[in-house]
């Protein structure tokens, strides 16, 4: 390795890869993340891509980005602003320049900065650096296209195939910048294209060419040094929230000894959960790709009636379509998990962007008094845990559970310490037993949990009928009796309320005498926690209460909230959780910080807002 001219030592760095949506930026970012994770850095990633598969080339609308944040201590977010930006064309520069940290490094493919592309990206002049006032950045103008062509000129490849490996040049260059080994990426290329040796050779050649280009230009370019993080010993893998959800259900199937059934319909950004489970025929998972969202959930309800661990997955518009069927699961008192990977709404809204605006829909988006358990995961990796516990609660309490994640969690990745399943509790299935046969009626209840018992077709002597019509509290027969209806409505609510005895209490992060309590729920944890941590390090007295259980709320919620005078609820909607808390705790005073831009919070904006509140 050649001598490096200038080495910048940093605790953490954010790199953003961006290009046309066909430029392979998602793969480039993913490969870089893996290498960094294996090197021993803690990482957090976030892809940001348009909803069009191939939006018009060269336009801002077609820019696809992938951001990686890695450091030598723990990182909780993909980072607000980037230290290093790779811009494969002018549109990528235009779209991302405003998300750069001052003085950062920008790598551009100078070949693509021609007049045509500059105009497409909306630049008025032929000098985007001056036009966007980027003079203070380290600009590496690398002729990526030319160099890629040059390194592959003897391989007899067609132009299209050559251009397709441009991203490997950029990746090689970034590896040089961070002094990272190429071996892992080479291994990946060899595996992925094992049937196409020419493609393997081409990609590796270009990757190395990119790295070597770094060595050549080192005299004028700084490189970065980030030491490995101090991470708990064990085996690790990278996982995103969607895969973690899918795997959480596999764990729940094993711990309950129930067959797993998923009825679902493809919808962004939730589809990946379904794809992941579809591949798991080897573990006996039955995935039914339904004709629509309604058939997705109703087939799952059918499977639940037949004694399977039943799940359906969706995003906002799909949850709207499933509302009627969730009501059926509520009245039939069948276990069911509904996963909503939230995205920007209303209507089709922003399919590939993140938001937390389905909370009220999850809580109340049904006809009648229709209580269901509502939970939310808060990091990509704990999507595994919350999917597991959603299934546990659904089965043990015979109720539908709605698990909220979001596009940010679903697509974001983190290194995940592979869990030992023996650390997870057994799921006790409340199935009828032989001794109950004489006395049994479909709505006889467990005295503690108030849940009914599960008897499914095929079990001898338990033939019974259930359905969407109100049933008699005792006999389980159809009943239109007014007093009975009140009693059944009450007991269905009481059953969901009882879940509170089986969930953990809310923990406060920070001191109880803090001047400001930050309140959040779900996927904003990483940003809120980082803001809390940085403010604390800067000497401010703040605390954080982050919710994963929403209906019911943890038992000590009221106690905790009453300890703090100044409270701010932060969420990516117009104040749905804040209003839910106000509804539950009369007279509570809450401030709000809301954002509905299809984007996560930035730590910067949160800190600025909190400091303002502290000064008030």
């Amino acid at each position, binding site marked *: 390795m050649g001598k490096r001219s200038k080495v910048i030592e940093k605790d953490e760095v954010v790199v953003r890869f961006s290009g046309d949506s066909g430029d392979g930026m998602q793969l480039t970012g993913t490969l870089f993340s893996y290498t960094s994770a294996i090197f021993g850095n803690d990482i957090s990633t976030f892809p940001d891509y348009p909803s069009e598969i191939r939006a018009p080339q060269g336009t801002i609308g077609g820019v696809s980005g992938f951001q990686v944040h890695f450091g030598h201590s723990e990182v909780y977010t993909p980072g607000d602003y980037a230290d290093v930006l790779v811009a494969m064309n002018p549109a990528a520069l235009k779209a991302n320049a405003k998300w750069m940290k001052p003085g950062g490094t920008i790598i551009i493919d100078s070949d693509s900065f021609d007049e045509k592309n500059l105009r497409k990206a909306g630049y008025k002049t032929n000098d985007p650096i001056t036009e966007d006032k980027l003079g203070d950045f380290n600009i590496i103008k690398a002729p990526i296209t030319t160099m890629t062509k040059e390194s592959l000129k003897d391989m007899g490849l067609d132009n299209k195939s050559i251009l397709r490996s441009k991203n490997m040049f950029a990746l090689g260059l970034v590896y040089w910048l961070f002094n990272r080994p190429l071996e892992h990426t080479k291994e990946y290329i060899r595996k992925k294209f094992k049937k196409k040796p020419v493609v393997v050779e081409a990609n590796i050649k270009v990757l190395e060419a990119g790295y070597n280009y770094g060595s050549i230009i080192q005299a004028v370019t700084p490189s970065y040094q980030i030491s490995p993080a101090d991470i708990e010993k064990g085996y690790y893998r990278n996982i995103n929230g969607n895969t973690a959800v899918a795997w959480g259900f596999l764990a729940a199937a094993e711990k309950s000894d129930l067959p797993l059934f998923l*009825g679902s319909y493809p919808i962004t950004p939730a589809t990946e959960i379904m794809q992941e489970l579809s591949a798991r025929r080897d573990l006996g998972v039955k995935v039914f790709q339904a004709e629509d969202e309604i058939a997705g959930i109703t087939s799952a309800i059918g499977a639940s009636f037949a004694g399977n661990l039943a799940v359906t997955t969706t995003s906002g518009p799909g949850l709207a379509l499933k509302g*009627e069927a969730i009501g059926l699961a509520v009245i039939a008192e069948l276990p069911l998990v509904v996963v909503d990977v939230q995205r920007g709404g209303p209507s089709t809204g922003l399919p590939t962007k993140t938001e937390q605006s389905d909370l009220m829909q999850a809580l109340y988006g049904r006809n009648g008094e229709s209580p269901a358990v509502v939970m939310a995961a808060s990091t990509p990796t704990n999507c595994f845990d919350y999917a597991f516990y959603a299934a546990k609660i659904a089965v043990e309490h015979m109720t539908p559970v709605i698990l909220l994640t979001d596009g940010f969690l679903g697509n974001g990745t983190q290194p995940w310490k592979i869990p030992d399943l023996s650390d997870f509790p057994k799921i006790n299935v409340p199935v009828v037993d032989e001794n109950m046969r004489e006395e049994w009626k479909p709505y006889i209840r467990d005295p503690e949990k108030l849940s009914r018992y599960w008897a499914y077709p095929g079990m001898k002597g338990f033939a019974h*009928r259930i*359905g969407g019509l109100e049933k008699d509290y005792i006999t389980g027969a159809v009943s239109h009796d007014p007093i009975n209806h009140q009693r059944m409505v009450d007991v269905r609510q009481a059953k969901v309320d009882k879940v509170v005895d089986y969930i953990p209490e809310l923990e406060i992060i920070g001191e109880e005498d803090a001047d400001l309590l930050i309140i959040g729920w779900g996927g904003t944890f990483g940003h809120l926690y980082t803001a809390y941590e940085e403010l604390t390090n800067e000497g401010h007295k703040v605390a954080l209460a982050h919710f994963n259980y929403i209906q019911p709320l943890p038992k000590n919620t009221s106690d905790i909230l009453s300890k703090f005078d100044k409270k701010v609820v932060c969420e990516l909607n117009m104040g749905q959780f804040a209003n839910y808390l106000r509804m539950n705790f009369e007279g509570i005073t809450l401030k709000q910080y809301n954002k509905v831009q299809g984007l996560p919070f930035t730590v910067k904006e949160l800190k600025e807002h909190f400091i303002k509140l502290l000064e008030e």
Partner: protein
Amino acid sequence: MSGVCNLKFTEFKSDQEVRWCPGCGDHAILNSVQKAMSELHYCKDDVAIISGIGCSSRFPYYMDTYGFHTLHGRGAAIASGVKIANPDLHVWEITGDGDALAIGGNHFIHLIRRNIDINVILFNNKIYGLTKGQYSPTSNRGFVSKTSPYGTIESPFRPGELCIGARGQFFARTVDKELKLSIEVFKEAAKHKGTSIVEVLQNCVIYNDKIHAEITDKQYKDDRTITLRHGEPMIFGKERNKGLILDGLELKVVTIGEDGITEDDILVHDAKCEDITLHLKLADMEYPKYPVALGVIRDVEASVYDECMEKQIKEVSEKSPIKSFKDLLYSGDVWEVK
């Protein structure tokens, strides 16, 4: 595995009082299903009856089997989930013309396309009964009802045509009050592997009385319907002297003994023929041009979804290196932090 029982048909009756209107065709269909299940030697605990919403969909409450009265139109999707989750069950779906062909039309065609082993009994009374008399997707063009006081301006679905168009492999038709034929047809539907659609011409005594009378009444029935049986000639009529022949691409009603027609000229019913052409023509026959076809019109073997699912799980799990969840956790890119 599902068991073999010798139960009397009365043992399939639940303790619930049957609440359909006196004279409703549903009573007869309930009896026919119970008798068919008894003759099929079903055990009660292996039976799951799934219904949607509508008069007919109260059916599960009257059967002493497992039953689930679900959502309007969604019976087919829920039944699909039940059957895929446990293929050993006998899964029957009870539905009506509004439930299956209007609000549940999408689930209906996709159930048929997938060919999941479910027996669908479609009660067709050409009216919305439970909401008190609005036209349905099978009401004839021009039909006057509370929501079509000047007559409908839309064409009806023909359930058989829709079923075959959705790649249905079993379609049969019967009449509510023809118990013997219904039992025979239900048993054939049960024996067929894959989705079986049985359309029952059912009378709604309150809101659409005698809607099928011009073909099902005793005095007309023999001349205005034809009961098809696999391998038998397509002969009908009080005198058993009428038959069907192919005239070019058209079916034609002929009289044996007239114009030199003999019994040998009459078409012989082949319910097992894969080609849908003739089945479609038979299913579409309408009075007065033709007799209405009853019995099993189409009964063709094809791949069955729930069986394929089990088979694929078995094959994939045998081949896959991932034998447990733990194997999956440690598969792919895993690294150790020491």
